[in-house]
């Protein structure tokens, strides 16, 4: 099938970028979206041009490294998957496909479609952990039973792959879904209770400092999240934040 691609090209963070047109004449519908880009890059390199830079690694939807804003949606038109799991059979012959980087002030473009998401790391460094050292003799893992529904809920929050689609989808470039997923995971589990208050306070503070916007309950993040993380996490984070603010 034939496709027209309109791809964001930007040499480096300091230069202005623009959309550039590329035509592909023989796209295999069973190729993945990134394999389609591989094919384009191969052609560009052979022609002596610079290939399109994009982030990717595991190509099975779990590492969170791939991004891309495809036809106005993070990770493209399908729900519940990352870009690397999107296949060309989802497009039609003759389609025009817009490919842009995830855009947010806190995610500066490095080159073309590659953005810097280290703000996410810094938020996690501010408190996204339980302060337990490696020890040869912690208590047995079965000492504290955890109700299955609670453990499952914590797991659902913990499936976040840290890709940043929630930020890219949000008109405010808010990172609340990402931050709340971690806070929820640890708030749900008894192990996380001890540090619950300082965790939410510190992580939210860091989130604000990184320049992410606020949540206005639009819900785009939940729709676009490749792991379908629920908005309930944001509600839980807000409760945790309120609790942390109450003295005593």
């Amino acid at each position: 099938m034939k496709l027209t691609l309109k791809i964001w090209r930007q040499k480096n963070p300091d230069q202005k970028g623009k959309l550039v047109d590329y035509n592909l004449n023989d796209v295999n519908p069973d190729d993945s979206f990134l394999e389609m880009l591989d094919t384009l890059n191969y052609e560009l390199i052979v022609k002596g041009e610079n290939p399109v830079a994009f982030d990717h690694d595991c190509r099975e939807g779990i590492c969170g490294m791939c991004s891309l804003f495809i036809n106005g949606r993070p990770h493209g038109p399908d729900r519940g998957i990352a870009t690397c799991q999107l296949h060309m059979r989802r497009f039609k012959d003759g389609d025009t496909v817009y490919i842009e980087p995830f855009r947010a002030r806190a995610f500066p473009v490095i080159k073309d479609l590659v953005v810097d998401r280290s703000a996410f790391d810094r938020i996690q460094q501010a408190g996204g952990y339980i302060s337990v050292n490696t020890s040869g003799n912690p208590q047995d893992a079965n000492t504290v039973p955890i109700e299955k529904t609670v453990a499952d809920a914590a797991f659902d929050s913990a499936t976040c792959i840290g890709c940043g689609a929630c930020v890219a989808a949000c008109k405010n470039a808010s990172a609340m879904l990402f931050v709340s997923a971690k806070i929820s995971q640890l708030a749900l589990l008894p192990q996380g209770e001890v540090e619950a208050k300082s965790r939410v306070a510190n992580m939210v503070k860091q989130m604000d400092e990184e320049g992410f916007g606020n949540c206005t309950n639009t819900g785009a993040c939940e729709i676009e999240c490749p792991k379908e993380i629920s908005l309930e996490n944001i509600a839980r984070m807000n409760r945790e934040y309120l609790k942390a603010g109450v003295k005593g």
Partner: protein
Amino acid sequence: MNRLDAKIPDGPLSEKWTNHKNRLNLISPANKRTLDVIVVGTGLAGGSAAATLAELGYNVKSFCFQDSPRRAHSVAAQGGINAAKNYQGDGDSVYRLFYDTIKGGDYRSREANVYRLAEVSSNIIDQCVAQGVPFAREYGGLLDNRSFGGVQVSRTFYAKGQTGQQLLLGVYAALNRQIGRGKIQMFNRHEMMDVVVIDGRARGIISRNLITGAIERHSAHAVVIASGGYGNLFYLSTYAMGSNASAAWKAHRKGAFLANPCFNQIHPTAIPVGGPNQSKLTLMSESLRNDGRIWVPKNLEDAKAIREGSKKPGDIEDGDRDYYLERQYPAFGNLVPRDVASRAAKERCDAGYGVNVTGQAVFLDFASAIYRSGKEKANVSGLKNVDDATIRKLGKEVMKQKYGNLFQMYHKIVDQNPYETPMKIYPTTHYTMGGLWVDYNLMTTVPGLFAIGEANFSDHGANRLGASALMQGLADGYFILPYTIGDYLSDDIGTGKITTASTEFEEAESEVKETIKKLIGNEGSHPVDYFHKKLGKIMWQYCGINRNKEGLERAMKKIRSVREEFWENVIVPGTAEEFNEELAKAGRLADFLELAELYAKDALFREESCGAHLRQEFQTADGEAMRNDVDFAHVAAWEYTGDPGDARLHKEKLVYENIEVKQRSYK
């Protein structure tokens, strides 16, 4: 001097590690603060080591090529992590985990290392639960287990089909805590380009900043390589696109021996190759073999009809199906170890029974598991006299709970719904048991240079059992290296900061720059992938599931010629001073093209079949691997001599004092 002293402590097997720890030299907290350690890689092994070393008080510099440590490829491990907890009361013990691992590895791993691994396995689960890793639980609130290939107990802990991700996020959290404290300096998007050895000791690395292209020097008192395996030699594999062997290969070139490079695991259940542009293969977890039954049609005509699309799998009556693993291996059935399952799939497909267009696929069928679990669910829910449709509906819900994300992945890639029609699967490269040779302390043949996780050769012998990679990565990083590295560093407390202004750093840096210049300046006509695909084809054809002398000799020649062609004819666009993925890929492939030759050479020299290494000349009458314990019960450790084809062989004899060495049987 015997350079292959494994330094295995004396005493009874079950006391070796405890006694060894008691005898290791300690370093006071004040002195730890003056010691620097570099860790390359942030997967389960590297991440857990960096975090633990920082907790202990060392100054750690941690490197990963991804944009965040959370993306290391441990994240993609699906099925689970083993531990000898015996929570199920099914007869598990440290000894049994040790026994299963040695046997699964076809008696080509070190007793003392494997016993230690089994011993610390329980601690790993305790540690992870304390960190908030959300393992699957039963309704009573206790941890759930499932079983994996090659064993007859249920000792695998899991978090749906995302166990690797959850364990890695635990490690990532521990790392973050130390980064936040300033004890770890994190270098994302940095690639290790070389190890710097000064006066015979590893003293630092040269790295390249993948955003700016800057070449940087980093010194330390010890360097830990935790950069994973080299399965991307095969181009198509379940590895991440960026997974590479460069750190390990550079270490090898600087004097670290590389052990058993030909021991490469071909995993039986990956989604088969689709088209010519395919860039990677996706695994379907071994845990699926708990419930899925593997089959091909009994009759060649049926197989042909399925390939041509005139019949569907559902059209084949149960009596006309060949559940070949259940038939050949009644004791273990679909849960035979990976090497056995892979060979059996290839054998059936080569005989003409393959079930997709290419003829290279077998079925993994959940229909009977859906029915069985649906029935159980109906009983538990108190439903009486339910019809088959309802039972299947309930059964699908159970499958979704257990394997939902895997089924979704399959559906997206293949465009077929595995709840309705059997999956098609085929073996692919998945894990490398070979790696840098290390002694009991996990130190390579270069003093001060350590290797952990998949990057080292230890523990899995010639075949790794499912759910043991996560166990080994975390065992090395959390519970072993932090002790043993202290012993090494204890005589370094007076050394002081290592300067990067030495001739050794100077030389290493200029060599790195020289290589980059050569790649960038080359006026070739083919991109990196052209050569990588060529290499992959050679590896799959001659060095894959089955090998033989003639093929391996041919592979060595072919690999050499691709290597020459690569250096003559590769194009690397752009400049060295910018974000340039093609340049990074070119450097990695240059190293693969050397390692591949040594891999073939090792396979050629090992004139026996064991585990994943099947030499066609050495098989039993019924096609099973035939070991030669007289001549090959050793670790083959190769020393670099300037050309991978001329590597020098050193042998570490494997001694079994606590386990009876016998023909492996899963029948």
